[in-house]
């Protein structure tokens, strides 16, 4: 099963507007030396409500950049960002964003970090704290509520960040290699935790990763980006694996290997291009 098209696959859902719709997105950075760098060119991508989409691509191709455009942290040079049928202006408050790097406030405890996420919604402090406590328990950190971020392990910090994002109950989740710096086992544990939480209310997810296995095991659809500059989408694959999944076991599945082989053929070319370009730049 493969479909190299950006057309919405879920025909029955056509009436509902997509959770995220990127249309003709160009993103060009102005460089300090006066030059310009076009990171992303002509990207069309839409994520249906409840859909889990993974975006893979070689390093530096513009995955984070694209995600930031969907988050409203970055204004595209051209194109339209639509969120649940409305044009996006400013920060995308319907989305929760799990960052690649540490984003917790270091001066707040785990509990405070999670509870503060409710303050913009006007939840009273007492209630916010109760709900934060419950969320920390859900991500398995009941005993760590009063720790400061530096007293938590990398995996534990990610759990706090996950609770901080999910407590707001956003309709959309944007995730930028959220488990990137973690070791292999912790990644799997976090992946299963994420799938568990996601299964409960099926938010629309745009999940950026450079790890193809992780992308396939988590998502409904894998989108492949080409190497930069002017990166675009060169592949769009539906993942034919049933849910619920255990992301460790699913890697042994025959279908998993088949889809992995297909996507890798596209991705490999881009990874090699990116590598060659990087070499060239080093020699220059």
């Amino acid at each position, binding site marked *: 099963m493969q479909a190299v098209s950006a057309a919405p696959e879920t025909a029955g859902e056509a009436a509902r507007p997509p959770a995220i719709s990127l249309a003709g997105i160009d993103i060009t950075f102005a460089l300090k030396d006066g030059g310009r760098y076009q990171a992303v060119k002509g990207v069309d991508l839409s994520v249906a409500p409840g859909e889990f989409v993974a975006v893979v691509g070689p390093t530096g191709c513009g995955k984070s950049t694209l995600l930031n455009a969907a*988050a409203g*942290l970055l204004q595209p040079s051209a194109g339209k960002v639509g969120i649940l049928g409305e044009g996006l202006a400013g*920060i*995308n*408050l319907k*989305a*929760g*964003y799990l*960052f690649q*790097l*540490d*984003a*917790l*406030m*270091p*001066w*707040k*405890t785990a509990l405070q970090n999670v509870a*503060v*996420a409710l*303050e*913009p*919604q006007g939840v009273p402090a007492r209630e916010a704290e109760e709900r934060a406590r419950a969320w920390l328990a859900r991500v398995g950190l009941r005993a760590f509520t009063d720790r*400061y*971020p*530096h*007293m938590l392990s990398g995996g534990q910090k990610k759990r706090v960040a996950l609770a*901080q994002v999910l407590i*707001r109950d956003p309709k959309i989740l944007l995730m930028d290699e959220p488990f990137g710096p973690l070791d292999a086992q912790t990644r799997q544990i976090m992946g299963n935790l994420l799938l568990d939480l996601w299964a409960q209310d099926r938010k629309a997810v745009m999940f950026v990763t450079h790890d193809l296995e992780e992308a396939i095991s988590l998502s409904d659809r894998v989108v492949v980006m080409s190497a930069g500059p002017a990166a675009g989408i060169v592949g769009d694959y539906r993942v034919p694996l049933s849910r619920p999944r255990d992301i460790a076991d699913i890697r042994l599945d025959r279908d998993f290997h088949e889809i992995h082989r297909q996507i890798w053929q596209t991705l490999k070319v881009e990874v090699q291009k990116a590598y060659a370009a990087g070499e060239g730049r080093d020699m220059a």
Partner: protein
Amino acid sequence: MTSHSRLKITLLQVLVAIGFLLAWHIATTTSLFADPRKMQFFFSTPTNVLARTWKQLSGAEIWYHLGITLTETILAFVFGATGGVLCGFLFARRELLAAVFDPYIKAANALPRVVLAPIFALWFGLGIWSKVALGFTLVFFIVFFNVYQGVREVSQTVLANARMLGMNERQLMRHVYWPAAMTWMFSSLHTSVGFALVGAVVGEYLGSSAGLGYKIHEAESVFDVTGVFSGMLILTIFVIVLDTIVTMIENRLLVWRPGQSTTTANG
């Protein structure tokens, strides 16, 4: 480090002190180098200094002077830190303001503050306020630069995350910028309290009728070397006590900071 070598180090440290005092004692009480009376005029003797210090500390007068110095130090610190935090914060958040005032701030900071002491004495009199003003000019810039830098270098990821959580400008201030500013204020706490004290003592030394600096100056003007040394000793003790209190406050307030964490070691 084992408890054994810890003990050893402490013993050696004590030994150094004893050696120093002994050398001082021998040099000033025997005719090994020169006439003891002459030596004592220049260097006093350890026993005399200790005796004088003890006598002073058990009397009431020195506490009055210590009180004055402490008041000046605290006032200089409070005003300097408050001003530094507010200005640092404002400048960090207002690019234009920072750009316009940049050369003036650099110039003002480059000026050796001691030369201001006579002017402050002229403006604010010989009482405590001229010393507070001197300490203020020292503390202000340290805190100002720290806070300015700290607020500007708030992690972009933490900031972006807070914005994604839907925080408005006021909430960003409260949960991100302000804690960052306070962190930097506290990380310069030792230095700024130290400078507040320097301002007070130097101010007193240059012209006043009370305080530790005044006591030292008074002893100096009558060539009372014992008095000068015991004044210095009291000042040192005072600084150590103050510094210990600052460390305690710091440990309380910066528990969240990496590197401040304590492990339970054996011994």
